[in-house]
């Protein structure tokens, strides 16, 4: 069982309060919590898309496999889209092989972290099969399960995701992360009118021990899915006052666009413009650009006859 400080850090991290985790002061280096906390902190930097800060945080000469993995993931994220990313992936591959051996230093926890981080990187690189393999089919680490579940969902296999969740329910505590996993599945399948994610995020918003704009965003998205657009708008607007990120912005645009008001439409268009200029790499922006080309291609199949106009 984790100490309560670490439990708390983990909880913040799981709920996406990366800012809070980043701002944490590290415990004493001799404390058993030091390395796990450091790892969460570094991972939060990476999650905030700031891999450089993560690299600065983690000592380069560390022997700990988990720390090495964090470094590699940070390098990978930093180099994504360039040719250097492959070398970072190779490092992670080596680490995943290394932890399988008996002679390696490091606790089970460190090994699990290595798998999660490697799996994350592989999934980011589109190597889903490799990611699944690294994470292991019978893992008893909930973080790994979360990654596996999301991968399954991303390839439209909610059935497998559900199976994975049911499996972990058998051994996992009534853990926050398990509830989160259940919610993610709920978001995709829409079971019981998105009841699970909705209550989960609402409950976490009421959690006095943390505040995470991510949770607000998530509830906003859930409300969009539940067709509660004005409520969603208010959630997302509040989230934006706390913290601006692409996801919230994109969701806000969707909610505004669906609100069936004139103002909503104009807002939506403004938000999209803002989103595409500030976050040109966000998937929704990329997706729309692709669809725009698709439209032009499809349109080209139709010949437009000349406009009928009065001969006079």
């Amino acid at each position, binding site marked *: 069982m984790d100490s309560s400080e670490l439990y*708390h850090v983990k909880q913040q991290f799981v709920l996406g309060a990366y800012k809070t985790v980043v701002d944490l002061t590290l415990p004493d280096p001799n404390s058993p919590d030091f390395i796990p906390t450091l790892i969460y902190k570094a991972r939060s930097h990476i999650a905030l898309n700031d891999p450089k800060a993560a690299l600065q945080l983690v000592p380069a000469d560390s022997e700990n496999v988990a720390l090495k993995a964090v470094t590699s993931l940070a390098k990978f994220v930093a180099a994504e889209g360039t040719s250097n990313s492959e070398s970072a992936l190779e490092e992670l591959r080596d680490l995943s092989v290394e932890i399988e051996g008996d002679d390696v230093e490091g606790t089970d926890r460190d090994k699990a972290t290595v798998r999660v981080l490697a799996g994350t990187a592989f999934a980011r690189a589109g190597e*889903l099969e490799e990611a699944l393999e690294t994470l292991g089919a019978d893992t008893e680490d909930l973080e790994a399960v979360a990654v596996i579940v999301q991968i399954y969902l991303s390839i439209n296999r909610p059935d497998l995701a559900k199976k994975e969740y049911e499996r972990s329910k058998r051994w996992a505590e009534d853990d926050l992360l398990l509830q989160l996993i259940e919610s993610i599945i709920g*978001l995709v399948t829409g079971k019981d009118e998105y009841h699970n994610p909705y209550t989960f995020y609402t409950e976490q918003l009421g959690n006095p021990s943390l505040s995470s704009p991510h949770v607000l965003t998530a509830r906003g998205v859930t409300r969009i899915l539940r067709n509660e657009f004005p409520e969603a708008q208010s959630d997302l607007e509040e989230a934006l006052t706390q913290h601006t990120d692409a996801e919230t912005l994109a969701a806000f645009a*969707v909610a505004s666009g669906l609100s069936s008001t004139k103002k909503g439409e104009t807002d939506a268009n403004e938000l999209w413009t803002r989103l595409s200029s500030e976050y040109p790499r966000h998937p929704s922006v990329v*997706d729309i650009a692709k*669809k725009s080309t698709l439209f032009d291609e*499809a349109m080209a199949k139709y010949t437009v006859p000349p406009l*009928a106009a*009065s001969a006079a």
Partner: protein
Amino acid sequence: MSVMLTKFESKSNRVKGLAFHPTQPLLAAGLHNGSIQLWNYRMGVLVDRFEEHEGPVRAVHFHPSRALLVSGGDDYKIKVWDIRPQNRRCLFTLHGHLDYLRTTQFHHEMPWIISCSDDQTIRIWNSTSRNCIAVLTGHSHYVMSAFFHPKDDLVVSASMDQTVRVWDISGLRKGSPNTGPGNFETFDTFSTVKYVLEGHDRGVNYATFHPTLPLILSAADDRTIKIWRMSETKAWEVDSCRGHFNNVSAAIFHPKHELIVSCGEDKTVRVWDLAKRTAIQTFRREHDRFWDLAAHPNLNLFAAGHDSGLIVFKLERERPAFAVHQNTLYYIRDKYVRAYDFETASDIGLLSVRKFGSPYVPPRTLSFNPAENAVIVTISSDNGMYELTTLPKPSSAQGGELKDSSVDGKRGSGMSAIFVARNRFAVLNKTTQLIEVRDTANSVVKTIKPPVQTNEIFYGGTACLILSSTSTVVLYDIQQQKTLAEVNSPPVKYVMWNADSSLVALMSKHTITIANRNFSQHSLIHETIRIKSGAWDDAGVFIYSTLNHVKYCLYQGDHGVICTLDNPVYLTRVKGKTIHCLDRSARPRTITFDPTEYRFKLALLKNNYEEVLYIIKNSTLLGQSIIAYLQQKGFPEIALHFVQDTNTRFELAVECGNLDVAMETAESIDRPDCWERLAQQALKQGNHKIVEKAYQKTKNFDKLSFLYLATGSTDKLSKMQKIADARGNPMSRFHNALYAGDVMSRISVLRDVGMYPLAYLTAKSHGLEELAEEILEVAGLSPADVDDVPSFGQSNRKPPPVLNPTTDLVWPSLSNGESFFDRALASGSLENGVEPSYVNGDAAAGSLAALDDWAKDEEVHEEIDPEEGGWDLDAGAEFAASHEVQEEVEEEEELGAGATPGVSEIEHWVRNSPLAVDHVSAGSFDTAMQLLNRQLGVVNFEPLKPLFLSIYRSSHTFLSPVASLPPLQLHVRRNPSESSPSRVLPVAARSLQSIRSEFVDGARDVAGNRLVNAQATFRSVLRALLLVVLTSDDEAKQWRDMVTSAREYLLGVSIELERRRVAQEEPDNIERNLELAAYFTHCQLQPVHLQIALRSAITVFGKANNSAHAGRFAKRLLELKPDAKIAATARQRVAAAERNPRNAVEISYDEFTSFEICAASFTAIYKGSPSVQCPYTNATFQPQYKGLLDPLTELTEIGASASGLPAPW
């Protein structure tokens, strides 16, 4: 209060803590021996037991929404338990208290737990972070109870220090930087003592808030219960309830009524009137002191824990008194007689019965007399009373006070009272055992001495009574004063007649007797669960409710479940698929159910095979029960049609002798025992081919050979011989040789196994001398050695010759009744006249047409499919990635199955909808365009691009729940209640409503003379209308109307713009100017806009001195009733035209022949002239424009063929 009904009782160690589950029938009990019991009080079973506390458990409480239980014990620990049977265990333990725990409770919305302890503190814990977040200190002795306020941020606590305290914890909710455990100083800032209530002379055991009012109740060792009231600023004692003669353990408010329930060590549970503070009822126990009390939050249920167990009880009967007459339900709620109309659902109060009997007892029964419009109400207080009152007319009841029954009510004493005739009612006096028949003036006309000890009387048909005694029901004739019939039954509590009074249901606690009207036939149903109520449906099926089910029962006694219930209901009427009922608080409700199952059984029972067949074909009857039922009732061949499972199919097929199906299923099962059973059945039916196959499958060589012999199949026999050779089985070889009449091989078998004597004799007796010699030689003997063997003579044994070749013949089987179903089900359509009469032909034809439509839609989809496939590949990185995975799958078998990508939601959208807009939402622009093109002839998509993109982006959103992974794409549905992939549909980005408001904007522009804006707006309206979700015929009609009016406005605005252009650029072309002005007035605009058009025309024509035309326009204007000023000018115009009915300019405008306006050339197309249409808006064009782009919408090709919008709803 004369009733306290015990519902459940258990014996155990002393019970110190109790809690009801808010939704399930579960009760948690903390025991003095350290165990926590979880009871299902409805079923009366112990569900679970949690035994981790050391020492007594005094505190238990359920989480309001999750499957959690919190408990506290004398081991100073608070434990939180997962109570789901599959996960039951202690989730975590909260440490911190330094002495016994007294109560624990979950907060109703926050993740908080409150606890109090003998360590003089109250603590609040966060169950998520598992930290103590507040310690409330101040009590100077044991804290005996502490509870959250049901709504506000308050806590009430009771302590041995003789005080009750109210604490304000609003500081806690504001959320605070969590400081972690250990910093006790900071806690005090969160919560403050708001009030200290002093008044008890001894320690206080229990204090609780009223669920809605600002009241507090406390119970103390000074033997009193005190009621306190609080305001924003202070709290004060209101009154005390005295009566307990020992320590009061607990006192709680009744959740719904103005009552207090308390219990104490004086071995009593007492009920008090909250308003009068007087004791109403006392319930005593012989030996057990009471320790704890709990109230169910929603139901009329209480639990009390005592020295040797616990009891669950309720305070009053909840069955509302009601009677049904035709379409009206007369019932009593809150002591008002009300009438509820089943069809209109109107529900009105008619009569107050508040002054009748004890105020705490609800009336028991109600009997309605339609002839007199009167009711008899009975009540059980005061040893039974009845009251006869006429109901006021519903109209007079409206407004003002309702009539009170005491005004003209006629009362008397008696346990049950019912109308028996138009002007007579019968009253049973239970103690004297006399039934009095009275007239409407309440005077006795007849007195009857019932033949049996009678507990209750019911209407028994004309001039008859049904008498219920302890062991029998008697049908009794009032006039003749004699018993007509008697049936044995447990005490009957309710009686229900069916619609035509041919059948009656007699209900007692656990049985229902269904009898015909003279009790000559009856059947009995036994239920283990308490029967609550029942009603007859139109088809003569009795529907009844138990504590937890609605069930049906057929007249011969078959019964089954229709649905389950969370809480009991009282059925009042069943009509079609709707059950009308009253719930426990006497509110009318309806339940919709599927009567198919019992209709099916009823049809079977009545041998109505047409209907059976109809039901089979038109509904989805499935499940083991129906199969077992059919099998049991001797209809295996029907059951066969429901079964998918091969094993069951086989069993059924064998049973009903359907060898084809049996064969087919046996092949897929392929187990020896199946083949053996098949062989037996086939043998019985003489189908030797199947027998042969079965024997072959089981390698049953002996039987197979004999079968071939029996069927005279010689060639196969010789094959068997070869097989036997190959198997090297001498016995088999010998058999086969014998059957085939093959002497040589018989001998060779005998020789091979060394039975030379037999071989020799066989050879010898078949005249094979040489062979016989040879055998002798091999055996080392000479003929001399066998001299003593007698000679047997020549054998001429041979298999009999085949007279009739039966090899290819199978014993003919008689086609019997089963073929009716086989034929009908196989042929796929019902022959005419087979449909049951209640389905008229039109409906069937309609459904056929609908099917055709469906088929059409299917076809459409098939055409689309290839495109979809092509599109998939382009669907983005997600897909590209998944394809890679697929390739790797082949190498990695272990994970292979797990990683194949599934069907994405957007593909489902495309599959599920024939609407272009849904395809746009799915991003399948290609198919969307195809649909628009095919349905509405759209060819120019350029202007639709922004719409396409905004609809698409509004239908998808992203979320990254897991750190650093690429975000998940989520798809927004318009039917979020639907999660089945085959029915999900994308969100509707634009609604008809929002487009209508845009249309109104455009119309406003017209009025404000901003014509260019208006033109753009109407174009955009028409574009948006292309991509709107329609869900009903009604919406489709609205859509069409809106398209048409948008078109007319657009046309009008375009004409007017053209006229202005002409006036500007070709000032001499007055003729054209006039024509256009005239046409504008023929666009179908709303009157207010049409006035503008007319006035403009009047001005233009006036200027051109075409006063006749101008006058006509003015007349039309006057018809629209414009305001006075305009009307006055118009009248002048009319007058001028009458003075001078001439036109200066000749124009092509004939207003007397109806015409359409060509939307391209703005010329008139008179009726009968050729024209072409826009496939979308139906705007009309001169024929020469066919094939060109519609200039109005700039979207469609004029004259293109189009199929119109599909109607997928």
